[in-house]
């Protein structure tokens, strides 16, 4: 791989890691788009590198969110039972399916993520701790509003089922599943968006790891491309966590929604053979 490509991976990794950590997505989707559309890597190779990116983003971002108590560890562990199960099944399926199918699935995931970002309400209805399950109660200090936010997730069964689907999608598409998990936690389970992003960010690493070993043993990782990917994502994720606690996520989410729609259209065109490079 030439020096220009390596530097471009590093720089885009910083951008993707920052947005990924801020929104709890891990940055995997953005990295896949970059690898396929800009560097023209085969889909399976792009997916393998993006899984490493998600693990790096999740580990770096997760370490900061845990320290800030934004991550709900117990909720994450309960939902992980479903996401990892789905991820392993999905990753096996993805290796059997052709690249074309993976690109179409990616396109669908990207459109779904964009739709959910636009659908996010500006104000949040938080369920107080006494109204739901005590097993996974959560609370954190919001640095923007300067107050403690106490909440309890609701609709746990629906959340678990959705987590299973999110895990399967992440296994097939090679992403951490954050694009599905953040909207589910926030819109369905009524977890505040910052806690949802922090918890999702924590979870996506495990989901990605479940799929990553399958891609690693399959020989899809380019080690020289992996270095700038991991370093860039790591730096960006740290910056993203510092920004997230100080800003409202709604504006950034909608901006990312626009970018994802554009990338999704391009990806469908490429899968359909209307674009090639």
């Amino acid at each position, binding site marked *: 791989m030439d020096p220009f490509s390596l530097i471009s991976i590093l720089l885009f990794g910083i951008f993707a890691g920052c947005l990924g950590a801020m929104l709890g997505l891990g940055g995997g989707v953005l990295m896949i788009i970059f690898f396929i559309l800009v560097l023209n890597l085969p889909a399976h190779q792009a997916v393998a590198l993006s899984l*490493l990116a998600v*693990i*790096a983003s*999740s*580990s*770096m971002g*997760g*370490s*900061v969110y*845990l*320290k800030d*108590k934004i*991550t709900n*560890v*117990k909720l994450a*562990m*309960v939902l*992980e*039972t479903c996401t*990892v*199960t789905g*991820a*392993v099944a999905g*990753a*096996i399926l993805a290796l059997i399916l052709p690249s074309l199918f993976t690109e179409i699935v990616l396109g669908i995931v990207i459109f779904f993520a964009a739709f959910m970002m636009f659908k996010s309400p500006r104000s949040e209805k938080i369920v107080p701790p006494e109204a739901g399950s005590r*097993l996974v109660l959560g609370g954190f200090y919001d640095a923007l509003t300067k107050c403690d936010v106490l909440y309890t997730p609701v609709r746990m069964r629906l959340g678990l089922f959705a987590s299973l689907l999110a895990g399967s999608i992440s296994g097939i598409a090679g992403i951490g599943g954050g694009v599905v998990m953040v909207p589910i936690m926030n819109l369905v389970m009524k977890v505040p968006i910052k806690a949802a992003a922090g918890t999702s960010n924590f979870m996506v*690493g*495990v989901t*990605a*790891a*479940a*799929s*990553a*070993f*399958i891609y*690693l043993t399959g020989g899809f*990782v380019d*080690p*020289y491309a*992996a*270095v700038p990917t*991991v*370093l860039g994502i*790591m730096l960006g994720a740290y910056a993203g966590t510092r920004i997230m606690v100080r800003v409202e996520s709604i504006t950034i989410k909608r901006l990312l929604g626009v970018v994802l729609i554009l990338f999704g259209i391009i990806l469908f065109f490429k899968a359909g053979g209307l674009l090639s490079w």
Partner: protein
Amino acid sequence: MVSVETILSWVLRAGVLSSAALMTVGFLSEIPLIWAGIVVLALTPLLRVVIAGLTFLSKGEWIFFVIALYVISVLVIGIFL
């Protein structure tokens, strides 16, 4: 007593930073070090689940210990499939 969040924060940070160090040195010298960094990175979430399980066990929170065991089992199955 140190909280589970603090312990897991240390684990994740140690994993990702040591992986980054190995990969950077490997990029400048030998390719096996890059692979070592990649393996350390991929194992970090697994280690995080193990440590979480042990921490919950030490606190007597059996439900979360069992959950951690299940997640580890699925991850191990994923590795060997």
